[in-house]
């Protein structure tokens, strides 16, 4: 068991928001998914106040050891999420973290207030880092912007608040410090790294959304550096992610100062990646002692 922001988790392996749809996965895998649920806490796909269709296809491009996505945050909107998704997510065997994103401080506030009062929800994650929607960059790339929104939403819920950082910033550690000082309980990083692909035949952007975000093994070293830089500057918990695909990768992020880790793209290669990483990490922990006090056993 570990404790993350006061919430007990059976282990330190989460999913990255938007990289595992537990409801769809249950259609594909049935209840076996719940019996062997791959994560120690489940992070929902980011929701917004209004429903969104997302970006036009194509939405994916494979790179060397990575994936560019330009999904565009399709979701049912706040009401649809609460009415139809939340009851199903409540059936998962692990605590639920809901990721929210607003196009203004007020929208974020509405989301935090509405989601934060639900008993099914253990924590909230503020996505201020999505590179696909313009506001993401503005809010999450500047310390002052981040501080402003976190201060605005902090009083609206007693639940732990995680701020998800974008890697597309000159100094993510400064943004993390701003989030901490404004009352965040944890930061998670990295979101996807801005990227682009050109259509092999036309020379035009391949992705329907023109640009997208790179994830997977290709960004692991970049993520690790940012996690280390952030962890060196903040006291709050750091949730590390970016290309983690093995227990050793998870151990590397923990050595860099993360208290927990999240699996994103690797789940696309193996839906049980979370479980595998947790098992490998547990084996490694016997040999390599964790250095981060936040990750100690309770």
């Amino acid at each position: 068991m570990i404790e993350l922001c006061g919430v007990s988790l059976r282990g330190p392996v989460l999913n990255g928001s938007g990289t595992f749809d537990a409801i769809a996965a249950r259609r594909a895998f049935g209840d076996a998914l719940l019996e062997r649920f791959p994560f120690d806490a489940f992070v929902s796909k980011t929701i917004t106040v209004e429903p969104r269709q997302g970006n036009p296809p194509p939405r994916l491009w494979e790179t060397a050891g990575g994936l560019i996505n330009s999904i565009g945050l399709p979701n049912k909107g706040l009401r649809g999420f609460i009415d139809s998704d939340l009851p199903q997510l409540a059936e998962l065997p692990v605590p639920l973290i809901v990721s929210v994103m607003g196009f203004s401080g007020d929208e974020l506030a509405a989301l935090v207030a509405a989601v934060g009062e639900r008993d099914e929800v253990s924590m909230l994650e503020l996505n201020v880092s999505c590179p696909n929607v313009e506001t993401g960059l503005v809010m999450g790339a500047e310390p002052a912007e981040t501080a402003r929104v976190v201060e605005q939403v902090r009083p609206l819920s007693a639940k732990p608040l995680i701020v998800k950082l974008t890697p597309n910033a000159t100094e993510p550690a400064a943004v993390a410090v701003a989030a901490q000082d404004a009352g965040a309980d944890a930061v998670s990083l990295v979101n996807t790294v801005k990227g682009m692909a050109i259509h092999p035949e036309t020379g035009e952007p391949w992705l329907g959304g023109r640009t997208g975000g790179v994830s997977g093994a290709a960004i692991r070293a970049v993520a690790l550096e940012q996690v280390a830089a952030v962890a060196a500057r903040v006291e709050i918990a750091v949730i590390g992610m970016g290309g983690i695909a093995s227990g050793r990768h998870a151990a590397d992020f923990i050595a860099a100062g993360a208290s927990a880790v999240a699996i994103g793209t690797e789940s696309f290669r193996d839906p049980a990646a979370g479980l595998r990483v947790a098992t490998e990490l547990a084996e490694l922990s016997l040999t390599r002692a964790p250095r981060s006090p936040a990750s100690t056993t309770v």
Partner: protein
Amino acid sequence: MSEPRTLAPPERRVAQVSGVERLGAYDLITAVDPTGPTEPCPGQFYMLAADDAWGGGEDERPYLPRAFSYARARVEPDGVALSFLLEAIGPGTERLALLAPDEGLALVGPLGVGFRPAVDGTRPLLVGGGIGVAPLLCWHEELPDAAVLLGFRGASHAQAAALFAGEPQVVTDDGSVGRQALVTELLAAELDADPAVTVYACGPPAMLEAVRALCAERDVPAQLAMESGMACGFGACFGCVVPTRDGYVRLCVDGPVLDSSVLETAA
């Protein structure tokens, strides 16, 4: 809701390649899946990757697994022998085409929803173009009396027709096998002769659009096994959407077989 969907184990597992057969332009890869379900539904697919050296091809790819309809499933003493028909068109399919017996084939599946039964009072009609014949093979095993119409680029591709039992009608773009015609011309003739059919089609986008239009004109029900770029295959990434009358749907969980009536028209 009794969808034709066999559940998959929630994890990647490794099957052992037992056979590799070259069929003109295609390869038929068979691997024994030790622990997966024995009865996938025709039209379902698997996400495949070579267990070793999945990478280092063109542009340092592949990295993600690739989607393949299963073409055949046979229960054997040590598992289900799954066969996939594949066309090497890029780094992922090229690596798979290099698989040798006893190598590991990593897979997740069966995934998606397969072909639904024919509408009451209609006879099934299978229409395949190119590599799109793959899912029709196992579907034809369940519907041995169904007529099969196949179109290929030329003789090398048309060798895949030999995989079908009975006498499929074959046409080619270059006339090297059968008539020089599009498979949709065969379909139009069949529909004109007897429109009381349920059409099952798989093939390139332009062919599927033509099938959709032909069937829509005549109010003939059609089920199309479609393709789109996929990263995960189980609804996780939201990458594989296609536009429908109800908005974007994820082809990997709501398809790959879609009822043609839900599709938007090309225009």
